[in-house]
């Protein structure tokens, strides 16, 4: 149950972050008159009952998505098999991302159709406005500001790898590493956003410069705070998993606080952006170009004429890639590979959980296998074999730890590391030493374990 709660705590807030971010983006964009579900419309067009109906439908569908996805993870906690629960969480996450975007795409398609039907589309509006004075000058992100959190995260990860914080399980070091790597990644995203072309809202150069400067400042602060938050979370992770580690006491509250803080930051950034848009609304005298056709479903940007790989989202908040550029295609392939990897991981975990382990003596070797051959130990090298009816306390260093399977490198307090390959539900286990390493193994059930033990004992051990 413990690992299930950790998964739930980590993934559940994504629902609220995603819901709030997408809904705020769309509402803020409509309020400032930039786009309605990603479609450029004038104020008069937006005030028509048909457009209002589409927008209401979008809000209603988003609420339905929120309620549905908020409820289903709880009954799933009672799924007895970890692999099935893990697969459920992964599918829940993917379905959530898709379902959060679907109402937007649906609204976008309907509004585009309405725009065509009513003849609101202006063909002559395909233009690009550039503020000459802003080109390459409005930059807010500096490496020096992001260097301390990046350095601390890297130092914590290096410390975890070198055992500075006590013996850290390998997979936990990898988890700390992944979170630590997020800090430089946040800096990279901040840089990309900072380098985006500035939006031209007015024919007045000063207005454009001040608006761009203020907008970039908000996003710089947002990413910088996120980088520091991520660094603090990395430190909390190493406190939780490094050495003796108070996993539950530190990890759970830290995760909850971290995700709540990210959500709060997002709320803050959108509020600031909204205030900025309201402040500059009277001075916005440049009509944005009608580039609806470059946005597939309002979410995917495809414009071969545009040389930018990273472009600002149509709503003005965030970055997306131009799928017509090689870099954009590469990013799309990376995303597809990440999803494929997540699905493969689910299949692999299920395979591991539902494939019974096998222990047998074959050709004078003790062979332990599951899916593939895990250990093949010559009986001649085995020392001090013993049949145990109780397992010592084991903590995982690397490998698999499930209710029905312990496999990999584990640690026994005050004794050191050992290799484990067993079903902890059994009541008998085989202990032996080989090449200076302690082994704890068992078969699928007690019967198989006893059979392997008897086969082992029938061999003439030099020590016996």
């Amino acid at each position, binding site marked *: 149950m413990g690992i299930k709660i950790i998964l739930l705590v980590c993934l559940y807030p994504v629902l609220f972050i995603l819901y709030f971010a997408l809904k705020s983006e769309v509402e803020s964009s409509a309020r400032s008159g930039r786009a309605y579900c990603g479609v450029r419309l004038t104020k008069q067009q937006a005030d028509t009952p048909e457009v209002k109906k589409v927008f209401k439908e979008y809000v209603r569908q988003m609420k339905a998505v929120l309620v549905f996805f908020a409820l289903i993870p709880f009954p799933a906690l009672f799924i007895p098999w970890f692999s099935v629960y893990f697969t459920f969480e992964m599918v829940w996450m993917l379905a959530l991302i898709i379902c959060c975007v679907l109402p937007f795409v649906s609204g976008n398609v309907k509004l585009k159709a309405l725009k065509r039907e009513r003849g609101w589309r202006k063909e*002559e509006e*395909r*233009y*690009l*406005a*550039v*503020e*000459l*004075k*802003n*080109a*390459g*000058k409005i930059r807010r992100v500096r490496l020096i500001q992001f260097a301390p959190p990046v350095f601390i995260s890297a130092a914590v990860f290096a410390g975890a790898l070198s055992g500075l914080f006590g013996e850290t399980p390998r997979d936990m070091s990898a988890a700390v590493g992944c979170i630590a790597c997020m800090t430089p990644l946040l800096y990279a995203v901040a840089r990309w956003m900072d*380098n985006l*072309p*500035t939006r*031209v809202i007015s*024919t007045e*150069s000063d207005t*454009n410069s001040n608006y761009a400067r203020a907008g970039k400042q908000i996003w710089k602060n947002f990413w910088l705070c996120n980088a520091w938050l991520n660094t603090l979370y990395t430190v909390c992770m190493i406190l939780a998993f490094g050495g003796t580690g108070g996993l539950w006491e530190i990890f759970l509250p830290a995760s909850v606080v971290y995700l709540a803080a990210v959500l709060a930051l997002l709320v803050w950034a959108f509020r600031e952006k909204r205030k900025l848009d309201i402040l500059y609304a009277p001075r916005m005298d*440049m009509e944005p170009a009608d580039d609806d056709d470059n946005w597939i479903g309002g979410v995917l940007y495809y414009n071969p*004429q*545009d*040389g*930018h790989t990273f472009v600002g989202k149509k709503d003005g908040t965030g970055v997306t890639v131009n799928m017509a550029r090689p870099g954009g295609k590469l990013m799309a392939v990376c995303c597809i590979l990440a999803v494929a990897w997540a699905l493969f991981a689910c299949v692999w975990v299920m395979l591991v959980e539902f494939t019974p382990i096998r222990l047998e003596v074959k050709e004078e070797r003790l062979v332990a296998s599951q899916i593939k051959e895990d250990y093949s130990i010559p009986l001649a090298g085995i020392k001090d074999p013993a049949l145990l009816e109780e397992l010592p306390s084991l903590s995982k260093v690397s490998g698999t730890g499930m209710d029905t399977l312990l496999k990999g490198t584990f640690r026994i307090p005050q004794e050191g590391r050992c290799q484990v390959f067993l079903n902890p539900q059994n009541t008998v286990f085989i202990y032996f030493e080989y090449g200076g390493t302690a082994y704890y193994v068992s078969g699928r059930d007690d019967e198989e374990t006893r059979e392997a033990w008897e086969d082992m004992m029938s061999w003439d051990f030099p020590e016996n």
Partner: protein
Amino acid sequence: MVIVLNDDSDVPVYLQIRNQIVVGISDGRLKAGEKLPTVRALAQEIGINSMTVNKAYQMLKQEGYILTDKRNGARIRESFPRRNGLSREAGEELRRIISEAKISGMTREAFLEECSRYFEGEE
């Protein structure tokens, strides 16, 4: 100063950039001595190849509208060469415009009035 580039225009992008900078100088939106963005920054902002912007700047330099040097980048010139007439290319362009106006039935007075409006900087 805002420059507006038309994606569907037959006029090449470098010429659109050049033309708009010339218009900016003539109506005072670009002041004498004012610094222009670097070739790389402007190309990045527009999302085009640096060579295109470079071509526009080279043209402006040759025509005597801007000065470029490695240290200070591109700047609007303090004074412009006085020709007391149009260049050959501009003259041909004007002839084409006049011909189009004539064919469309525009009178000489209406055409000159239109020219005066643009000359005075009215849109």
